[in-house]
């Protein structure tokens, strides 16, 4: 009873409410407003645009499925990037880690094609995780050994990873059977595909990851010693070091975990969605950046990050519908998203403003 009371009290803490709900809600609201302004300025009708957007995102069963399909990699990458954020590491390399994860899982899926049933799929998923983790390892090591900021090295590695994957899919693993304009690897055997869970749609088992992963990460962060050390490392590195936490190890572990989860996101794209590695697909879809936005919008709380991922996925799928209906370009979504992060960056000012308002009221 007392425990329930404590939980209620904690969740009624005005600061907690402000951080958990008001700031993201305000950020999203202003983001949409700015998006509307841009539409008006460039000669569109914002009301028609946004209703087309809403319809495109959740209007029909097919649209809902499309939204879910798009949200899966976004949300997974978001949770992954959030793990690094909790340790105070700004992993901007989610894209590179996803690309390497995709590539590795595609290669593995082809290589282990004989392995029966789920074991093969698991191997391919693990291959994606390992590749993603390895791609995150170098930035982590460079930061803890040489104080080179993770944000710069992880970002530069995106370009290197993309070019490497372009080479692999253009030469050694190129699919020579088709005549696709972009480079891609051969289709993986059907038994390696993530099983379909809704007949007549492309909805695959990857959606289950959206339920299990955030719960697992939340439990890890809140209830384990490692999680405590991770949070304290992110909250104040000097304090963590003073308290006896091996901060460097925490940063490396957080980045490895972060990279592995981003790699998983890439593997899910291959095994569940495209069933092959398609060059430039991951970067062109902007999965990792949307994941980054989801993580940052929710202060890296894993469960809410998934909801933010669903929101962003819906926004993007809806925007595609809007483009078809109104001829307004898709990238209006990026404007909305950028405004949202700008609002999050200004969180201290928004907090202060909210505090003044609550006091005045």
């Amino acid at each position: 009873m007392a425990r329930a009371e404590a939980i209620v009290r904690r969740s009624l803490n005005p600061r907690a409410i402000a951080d958990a709900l008001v700031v993201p809600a305000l950020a999203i609201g202003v983001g949409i407003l700015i998006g509307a302004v841009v539409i008006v300025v460039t000669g569109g009708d914002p009301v028609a645009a946004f209703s087309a957007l809403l319809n495109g995102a959740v209007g029909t069963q097919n649209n809902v499925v499309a939204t879910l399909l798009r949200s899966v990699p976004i949300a997974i990458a978001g949770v992954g990037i959030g793990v690094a954020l909790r340790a105070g590491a700004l992993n901007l390399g989610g894209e590179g880690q996803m690309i390497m994860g995709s590539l590795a899982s595609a290669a593995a899926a082809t290589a282990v094609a004989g392995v029966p049933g789920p074991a093969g799929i698991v191997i391919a998923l693990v291959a994606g995780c390992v590749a993603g983790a390895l791609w995150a390892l170098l930035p982590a090591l460079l930061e803890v050994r040489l104080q080179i900021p993770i944000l710069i090295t992880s970002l530069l590695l995106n370009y290197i990873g993309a070019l490497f994957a372009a080479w692999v899919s253009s030469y050694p693993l190129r699919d020579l059977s088709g005549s696709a304009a972009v480079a891609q690897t051969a289709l993986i055997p059907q038994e390696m595909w993530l099983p379909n869970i809704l007949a007549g749609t492309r909805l695959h088992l990857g959606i289950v990851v959206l339920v299990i992963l955030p719960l697992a990460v939340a439990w890890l962060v809140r209830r384990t010693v490692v999680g405590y050390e991770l949070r304290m490392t992110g909250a104040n590195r000097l304090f963590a070091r003073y308290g006896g936490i091996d901060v460097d190890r925490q940063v490396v572990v957080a980045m490895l975990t972060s990279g592995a989860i981003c790699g998983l996101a890439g593997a899910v794209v291959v095994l569940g969605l495209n069933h092959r590695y398609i060059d430039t697909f991951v970067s062109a879809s902007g999965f990792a950046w949307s994941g980054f936005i989801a993580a940052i919008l929710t202060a890296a709380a894993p469960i809410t990050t998934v909801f933010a991922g669903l929101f962003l996925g819906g926004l993007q799928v809806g925007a595609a519908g809007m483009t078809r209906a109104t001829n307004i370009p898709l990238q209006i979504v990026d404007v909305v998203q950028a405004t949202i992060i700008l609002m999050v960056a200004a969180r201290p000012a928004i907090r202060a403003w909210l505090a003044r308002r609550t006091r005045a009221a």
Partner: protein
Amino acid sequence: MSASDAPALRNQPQRELPTEAAEAAEAAVSMRGIVKRYGPLTAVGDVDLDLAAGEVHALVGENGAGKSTLMQILAGVTSMDAGRIRVRGRDAAIRGVGDAHRLGIAMVHQHFMLFPSLTVAENLTIGKEPRRRLLVDRAAARRTVTELSERFGLTVDPDARVRDLGVGALQRVEILRALLRGADILILDEPTAVLTPQESERLFGVTRNLAAQGRTVVFVSHRLEEVISHATRITVLRDGRVTARLAAAETDIRELARAMVGRDVVLRLERHETEPGRTVLELRGVSAPGLHDVDLHVRAGEIVGVAGVAGNGQSELADVISGVVRATRGSIEVDGRDVTGASVAARRVAGLAYIPDDRFRVGLAGDASIRDNLIMGRHAGKAGQRRRLLDRAGIARRVERVVGAFRIPADRLDSPARTLSGGNAQRVVLGRELADPHPVTLAAQPTRGIDVAATEFVRRALLDRRSTGSGLLLVSADLDEIRGLSDRIVVLHRGRIVGELTAEEADDTTLGLLMAGVTGTPGTRGPGRPGSVGSAAVAGAPEAVVGAPEDIDGSR
């Protein structure tokens, strides 16, 4: 002492003794009914203050008495909530530092407002750089500085980079800058806090000189001896109100202390005599960046104070003992166990509690909950975990115990630690570190920046700790605190231990000379000789003088 009788004191100023100078000329500054509140806290409550031309006026009070705030209002750094200020007989609206400068008022802050990578000349002329054609005229800047420094006897090298200067020189640069801006009302905020006694003497030579030229010097202090010897008039503040206005020539330390503290002198906390036990912390020949060949030991049931001018290796010493920095040479033992190569965590397990000097930067995670802050360092031990999972019941029991014992606000355990006041933040740190018995306690600047009540609480907690048989190493910039609490005192200078004294031997002169690096004075002994404590013998012949006091100005 009660705050309610303070206004009565103000309305009937006891012994208001204006000097002749003050009567002759109209007051240089007159402040009336000054009020400043921070939320529910009244920092300055209805204060009147007159400053005369040609006087050195001391503003005295304990930490948090409101003296710095009052001066910040006069200097335009802080705004006031009510009150009136007249400067040279005219109403003055001081809305910012710029207004104060135009009125000839300048403040030298406790934390120097200088630019380390710029030269002294650039620091002094910034904002009003002399120009020649398009560029800054360096020769003219240098000339201005040299002229001014000669005129006031404040020697500085105009071409030196500020980052290479010692504290004394930095302060002279600050004072020169104020004078260069034409300040004739100069406010010095705790000017001697970072100086050796000898450097302080030199500073007061300058202030006397300035006053003789008809300028007004106000200095804020809580060191009663220097106030009596160097001020013309003294105003005492307590809890934001004036409790006495005195002429320095006609008062004494007892009277000042009573006005300051509000009860008869309790300058020293009661310290039970204890018999020191086994050695619990031992450093042998320890070197690290900023530390050279340090020998030091602390025994159970004693407090060893570490004195020294700020920046002479105190924080390096704390780092190397706590394990944040590894020793490059020598060995460290905690409770008989060699921890030289051990991690921070291993040292904590070996029995080290550590109260760090910067509680908001190092001692707490401002954005983590108070609960999370209370278990740091214990989270991986028996009380915190079971099979790598956080043991929430165990943690709750521990938090409850600490919160009760250290009077931490219990209703906000899930709020971020950043919302705590300085005193309560320090309670959280103390509670975490002192809740369990540990053979060794390392306390760095434990009372810096907290109010009187909290200070007393902290000091009592440290003394309690001593009587339970823990050995304490106390690093503090507050010499009174060091003398009041320590059984033995060691002095650091440029990363070396240059002397060791008993509390009784540690008078200003002896301590000051050691802090300036002058060894061989009677009454000091060589560093850390086990078993020599308690004997008053002077060790050997006076050793050679290592460096003149001026040396510390040269470089850090």
